[in-house]
């Protein structure tokens, strides 16, 4: 049997449904006439598992899993990693420093741009945005230890 994309997707939804049921133990289900806070999550989990199973049954219509292209995965993973580091530092370093570093890292590490153009572009864009939001639109942005 060929493993198809919908086999994987359907299995993932079934697993997710089971996970939700497993962590919903403490929520009162109530009954059909008087549903508790766990009622709808339980119904939705069961529905999701049913739909997931249907997807698997009809998976023959989908592409073979092996034919899915993952050439963009490295780019995506690096963007996620750099953005995650920026999010982790955001409240500590503030808007300007975090975003300058994030944009610089994205341009240099992923896009292989020169150090100087990347630095100039990052600083220019972030500082312009900061001025626009804080002074023109009167929307305060997170500040760091340096006051911006």
């Amino acid at each position: 049997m060929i493993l198809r994309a919908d086999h994987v997707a359907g299995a993932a939804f079934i697993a997710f449904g089971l996970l939700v049921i497993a962590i919903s133990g403490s929520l009162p289900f109530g009954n059909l006439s008087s549903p508790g806070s766990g009622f709808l999550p339980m119904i939705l989990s069961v529905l999701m598992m049913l739909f997931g199973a249907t997807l698997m049954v009809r998976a023959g219509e989908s592409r073979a899993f092996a034919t899915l292209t993952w050439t963009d995965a490295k780019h995506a993973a690096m963007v996620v990693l750099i953005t995650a580091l920026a999010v982790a530092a955001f409240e500590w370093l503030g808007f300007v420093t975090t975003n300058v570093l994030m944009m610089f890292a994205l341009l240099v590490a992923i896009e292989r741009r020169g150090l100087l153009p990347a630095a100039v572009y990052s600083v220019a864009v972030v500082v312009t945005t900061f001025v626009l939001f804080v002074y023109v639109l009167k929307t305060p942005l997170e500040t760091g230890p340096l006051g911006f």
Partner: protein
Amino acid sequence: METTLHSLLLGFSVAFEPHNAWYAFLGCLVGTLVGVLPGIGPLAGISILLPVTFGLNATQAIIMLAGIYYGSQYGGSTTSILMRIPGEASSVMTCIDGYAMAQKGRAGAALCIAAVGSWIGGTFGVLVLTLVAPPLATLAIKFGPPEYTALLVLGLIFLAYMSSTSLVRTLLMASLGLMLGMIGIDNMTGDFRYSFNLAELGDGIGIVPVAVGLFGLGEILSTPSADAVKNVMAPKLRELLPTRQEWREAAMPIARGTLLGFIIGIIPGSAHIISSFLSYALEKRLSKHPEQFGKGAVAGVAGPETANNAASTGAFVPLLALGIPTSPITAVLIGALMIHGVSVGPMLVNEHPDVFWGFVASMYVGNLMLLALNLPLVSLFVTVLRIPYAYLYPMIIMFCIIGVYETNNSIVDVWIMLIMGVLGYALRKFEFDPAPLVLGLVIAPILEQSLRQSLIMSNGDYLIFLSRPISLGLFLVSATLLTLAAISFVLKRRDWRATLAEVEAGEIES
């Protein structure tokens, strides 16, 4: 009627206040840019710019955000016609004949016809909205929890039925969205659900981080800069006027697209996308020369572009009259108004007439602004596309972070956005449309509350849904749609939805 006209005049007095007119202009301009840029759709655009409206009053905020919404519909046609790249999903059909016209040297005419059609569709939509929304709001006051439950269930089923991907995939996405909507404090019992001791999750997951993550960041993750577009053609101003023959060919498709788009717009679902496809299919069927479709048929541009703008306006009818979001975009607009202390629903027109009528009047003005903006400034908008994508996407990520963080000043929201970005990337790989997920997330609390309130009203008797005429009618429509969908599902019958899925896939990949 007299009252409506009087109220509309009040609306125009609000819309023409310099500050309000400025924000309408700003919204239209930014919306056009959002539509032009591949990667930021109207939903992500509105979500990202939501914090910008915090310093404005409710009227200015909704005027600006709505301007972004319908501006993006206009802007989406530019990249479709000039580059065969839909700036946003509803412009997919315009790619086919718009780009073919551009290759024949008629890019300017195609842009002009798209802009005029969009203006007519949008303006007609506002006209009907003006007449229909207030009486509908009066009727909606009679809606109780059972009617709201029935209407929301119908919305979900209609979305699934009309979806271009399969019924099961749409229902899966909607279920996942509803499930995410269960996170947070249960309003009826006070129980914490799936909040994992994070205080920020007590209020549930916000629509902004989910929408920005799925549609903004998810798109960026799926688009390596090496694959981004490089060649852009820009028509000259003098080439913008269509010939008399082209106007004649566009007239009836524009008229039909206007009506069709508006009617589809008021029904829940991704109406603007569906309407453009149906309009294209209708024009091809009615044409005396169907063989010209795909080779630069004027009707193939005029119909879909008009329909998607009419549908965008039609979507405001249930929003303003019933307070029900029929799409993720209108859901964000509701959120924006709630941030400003304005509850959307049947009482809006009476409690905040300045907001309601100011907003309606601003749409007349905004559509006119867009017509004036889009044609002369097309070269300017195209210039934006010349910025290398490698430089563009880091800036978009920065705006995603600002937009999400500023909404609640919560870093947890930004983490949710990041997680949703990864989920959006995975969903694209497996050909799932994330729009029903967002819609499910939005309506989950309303659906759950109205269902449980209905059962309290009836002492747990489910027959309450069948004993009230409006809810019975709505459930009958739902049952009919489910039956129709089940028949084509079981018989594996191909219909227009399968064709739409193929066209969308083909156009977006090309």
